[in-house]
């Protein structure tokens, strides 16, 4: 690996290891995933049945895949808008981060992605396994959706970390950035398709969702992995994700540069 990228890889690994120490918390999270999962199964299965077994491309099997994959991603997608960086900006510790010879944005996103990828082990995989065993789900039988799905998931996790990073950088200008964080928390889960799949939204609402990075974090990866969207359409979703990755990355980069100057004006 090139020496320029090595620090970020190490931060990724550190984030992964940091999470692995909180085992009870991970177990608690899994119980929460399962409880909400079974409640979603009850109400969403009833919805599909009431619609005659088919609803916007969802039958019971695909709906089950959606439910358990989305529950499994809860530990990996930042839907709260809270980050360590926001606290470091608030108490001024971020000045130390700027002294380090690495890029602040890349370092933060790499650490968060590391934590998120680890969370797939205690929360993601068991949630999907539980759903597959207890409820049953339909998963694709060809390798392509899994390969593209893995990439799509990684990009989704990164978009989530990059967007949460933007929320934190607002703290350079607002001393108390909690209002923005709370707003993010309120809309992110809904627009990411956590409680109801976006395909079930009325047209105007799904247009609003598509104009935000939130579906790229959760809904698109689930659509690709579950095989609900295949072929060119799946590649289209992946392209949209890459677009949002570029947009959120560039905004975060610009805000970091501008915020750094602002921070120096304040005296750091």
């Amino acid at each position, binding site marked *: 690996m090139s020496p320029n990228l090595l620090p970020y890889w190490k931060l990724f690994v550190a984030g992964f290891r940091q999470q692995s120490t*909180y085992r*009870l*918390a991970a*177990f*608690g*999270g899994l*119980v*929460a995933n*399962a*409880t*909400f999962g*079974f*409640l979603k*199964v*009850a*109400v*969403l*299965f*009833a*919805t599909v049945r*009431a*619609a005659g077994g088919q*609803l*916007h491309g969802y039958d019971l099997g695909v709906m089950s895949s959606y439910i358990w994959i989305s529950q499994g991603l809860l530990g990996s997608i930042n839907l709260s808008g809270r980050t360590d960086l926001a606290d470091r900006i608030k108490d001024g510790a971020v000045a130390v981060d700027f002294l380090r010879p690495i890029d602040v944005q890349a370092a933060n996103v790499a650490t968060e992605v590391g934590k998120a990828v680890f969370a797939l082990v205690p929360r993601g995989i068991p949630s999907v396994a539980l759903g597959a065993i207890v409820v049953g789900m339909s998963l694709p039988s060809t390798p392509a959706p899994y390969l593209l799905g893995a990439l799509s998931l990684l990009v989704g996790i990164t978009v989530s970390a990059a967007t949460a990073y933007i929320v934190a950088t607002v703290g350079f200008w607002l001393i*108390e950035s*909690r*209002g923005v964080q*709370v*707003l993010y*928390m*309120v*809309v992110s889960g*809904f627009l990411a398709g956590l*409680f*109801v799949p976006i395909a*079930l*939204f*009325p047209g105007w*609402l799904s247009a609003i969702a598509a104009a935000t990075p939130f579906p790229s974090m959760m809904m698109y990866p689930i659509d690709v992995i579950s095989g609900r969207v295949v072929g060119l359409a799946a590649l289209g979703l992946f392209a949209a994700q890459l677009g949002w990755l570029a947009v959120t990355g560039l905004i975060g980069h610009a805000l970091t540069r501008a915020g750094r100057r602002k921070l120096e004006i304040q005296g750091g």
Partner: protein
Amino acid sequence: MAEPVVHQGSVGPVTRLAPYRAVLAARVRAQRSYRSNFLIDLGSSLLVGFVELAEVWILFHNVHVLGGFTFVQILLVFGIADFSFALADLFFGHCDNLPTYLRAGTLDVFYLRPQPVLMQLITSEISLRRLSRAGLGVGSIVIALALNDIDWSAARVALLVLALVSATATFAALFVWAAGLQFFLVSGAELTNAFVYGGRYAATQPAAVWSRPIKVVFGFLFPMAFTAYLPALELLGLPGPQWLPAGLAWCTPLAALWSWGMALGTWRVGMRHYQGGGG
């Protein structure tokens, strides 16, 4: 501060409650003094309520009857559940902060004061921002009562009041139950969130869609079906599904008592288990 334990038997209830009132009044003043933050909190709390209502509405936008309910009918369930949960959250929600106190060792301060620890924890904060959420609940109830064809009688009015009081008590008990378990879990708060916030989610659903295991857990163990679904069935004159006949609506106070029994039992065990923060 030194003597109140000795006098506690002789002073009237007004004097005994004075310390709690002083703390609560201070918390109210504190929240109102950061005016813009308070407004953001009120607004975001309302927005959360609207988003949760939207999640229910989207399902009914796709299918018009779900679990035997129409959207206007489920609005009554949503309203009762959301209003009661918001009220319970207003007065008891900060019991969720217990793990923070446990980790920082600041809970030990509560033990030094001559008042019950649980009462101190409950009165240590009041989340006024939940008022907007409770307002949304009231709005949903009023609209649902106006739009549904309800055959009013004195008994049904009494049932609605009984349901709102019992549901608030039931949700409040869940917060206390969760706090009792935090003495063992500390960093595993999500385990209890599954039942507190999962319970809130369950309470807004038409319970007819539940499988049997869910009926056991959220119908009876954590009696969420009793908070809003069963009273709504009785008010609307609908029959209930298997295991949850509409007549059970009159047992909502029993559900609240059961929840508080579980909550106080768990809290006592937790208190005994606690060894102090090492301070």
